[in-house]
């Protein structure tokens, strides 16, 4: 047996594929790749924020009785309109759903965005322009100390009103 093997030229002795070694080599290479990818993903986890600087999205707006029918109030720093009608109170965000400019409320009650001309109805419904959807209604609550509180990051379905 060993005689025959020696008679092979040097170059051919290692020619037949050694499948076990191939497998181990490939497994090592791929686990290195996998480790690298996981490490990269792990590193990318750091810049993904879990707490936001705006985490305190609850803003106090004043006493609910202060909001009167027919005179909507605007809170520029919160980008929020507060309305009272028959049903109660509701708040609409003035942040345009297209690309985040501030829509302005006109005399006719409609909202117009200066950036690409989206138009929204008095209830925030989309009337025209590039925005994909209507303005966002945000959640209103009354705190224990009888103050109206809006959660600027919590959307509610349009038409939701707070009786207060």
């Amino acid at each position, binding site marked *: 047996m060993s005689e025959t093997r020696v008679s092979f030229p040097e170059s051919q002795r290692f020619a037949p594929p050694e499948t076990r070694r191939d497998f181990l080599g490939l497994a090592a290479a791929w686990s290195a790749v996998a480790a690298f990818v996981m490490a990269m993903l792990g590193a990318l986890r750091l810049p*993904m924020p879990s707490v936001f600087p705006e985490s305190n999205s609850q803003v106090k707006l004043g006493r609910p009785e202060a909001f009167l029918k027919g005179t909507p109030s605007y809170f*520029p720093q919160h980008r929020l309109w507060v309305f009272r009608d028959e049903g109660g109170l509701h708040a609409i965000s003035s942040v345009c759903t*297209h*690309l*985040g400019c501030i829509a302005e409320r006109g005399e006719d009650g409609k909202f117009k965005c*200066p*950036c*690409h001309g989206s138009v929204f109805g008095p209830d925030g419904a989309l*009337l025209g322009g590039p925005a994909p*959807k209507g303005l966002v209604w945000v959640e209103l609550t009354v705190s224990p100390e009888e103050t109206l509180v809006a959660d600027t990051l919590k959307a509610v379905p349009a038409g939701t009103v707070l009786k207060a």
Partner: protein
Amino acid sequence: MVEGHTQASSTEKPAARAGRHAGPLRQFGSNLLTTPREFRDALIRHGKPTSDRARSQTVFSNFFLHILSVRMHRHSLKSATTLGLGVATFVLFVILCLTGVLLMVYYKPSVDQAYDSMLDIMHVVPTGAFIRNVHRWSAHAMVACVFLHMARAFYTSAYKRPRQFNWVVGMGLFVLTLGLSFTGYLLPWDQLAFWAVTIGANIAQSPQELTDALGVTGVFDPGRMQKELLLGAHYVGQEALIRFYVLHVIVLPVITCVLIAVHFWRIRKDGGLVRPASADAAPEADGFRGAQAPRRAAPAPLKTYGLMGLMQGRTPAVNREMRNTVPTWPNALYVIGAATMLTVLAMLVLGYAYDAPLKEMANPAVPENPAKAPWYFLGLQELVSYSAFMGGVGIPAIVVLGIALVPFLDREKEDAGVWFSGPRGRRVTALSAALAAAAVVGMLWFTVRFGWLRNWEATAHVPQIVVTLFNPGTVYVALFALWSIGVVRATGSTRMGAIALFTCFLVGFVILTYFATVHRGPNWDFYWTHSEWPVH
């Protein structure tokens, strides 16, 4: 030669050795006296570049020059070949790095101090305004040069085998340049910066347009992830400013440097600049130095080449290519030097003559109206005013991907290095340009005059997905694609199809950019001139 020196010192004459014993101080004195010359010999290890051999040595023994080959083809050095655009782009990048570091000395990336530090730079810091102007104008110029450089490479078929990969690297550099520019846009923290970046960040979020339509946003929301990664918050604020700053001053520049190195290295490995077959015809008398065949027998080469390095061409060109090359020193260095000086001069003049704009401090409560992005994004902003996703993400991705894949889709070998691949290509280019211009101008006229789906009674309430898929932007893309497929069928050439598509995109981009820059005013309404804008 350095070998010569070492040999000489190891075989000193006995007399010199005796002298060393006699006066070590004398030796020291003479060492001191000859130090400048020794130093020069250690630094520059060859004689004056008067012979071809010394010129070659000048190039390959110098760290900064060895990226260049020692001889270059005449064709590569003619200004019509590259228009110097690659060199200009690189020089602008260097200017940007230098002025950028200077600005970092005073700039403070904090929402409370950023704008004040900008005012300081503009009004208090010695030469601050000038340095900032040069930085800003160089950034604009770099984007312009990258565009032109890409167009040059495309129209001279420089993307073809073996240069396919370098074309892809170039696309990477193109995207990085835009990224660098965009991240720098926020840093002044003025109204324009704040609102342009607010729009940009919401474009990153716009895949929600699709996921909303499919009703999967709750479980799969890449849009929100992108926006949060970019801003670190829900709105543009301190977190966003720091992130943009880090990207702008370290992450993107470092990646850009690496890619530039690869880009340059590949030029060498791919056999220099692309040139047409005709460039290897008999040499003309064109005034390059050292171009004549050596009168005496050439000295034996000091550098050996691997066979693979020589055999890259389609045919083994014995003697021919060598005859058409000229020494890099000084010929190529004159050309590169001229392009460098012109670029630097242009930036200095611009920086001296025009102040970079700085608006009022950012005010998150009142949008800038109109909030225009930097000029090279305005074409996209025009498309975004129909569909945020298509204009901001979908179409740019299609275009960048399409252009990056060009070398793999068009593999015809003929006429590389010839502008427009000859008269037929020139015709296709002109036709495509005319078609794209007619289509884009016609569509702009139509939308300004009649609006789009949402403005019409019958279609006012179509679901968003319809607008996303069917808007002027997607119409352009479909039209251009159909046209270039038609060109491929009519001419039987993929190169002609590629020319048609690239020309359409280029012309469309230029017209949209012009239109949005000049004719869009407050509320993104149409105005003939800036003077017609309503005063507010």
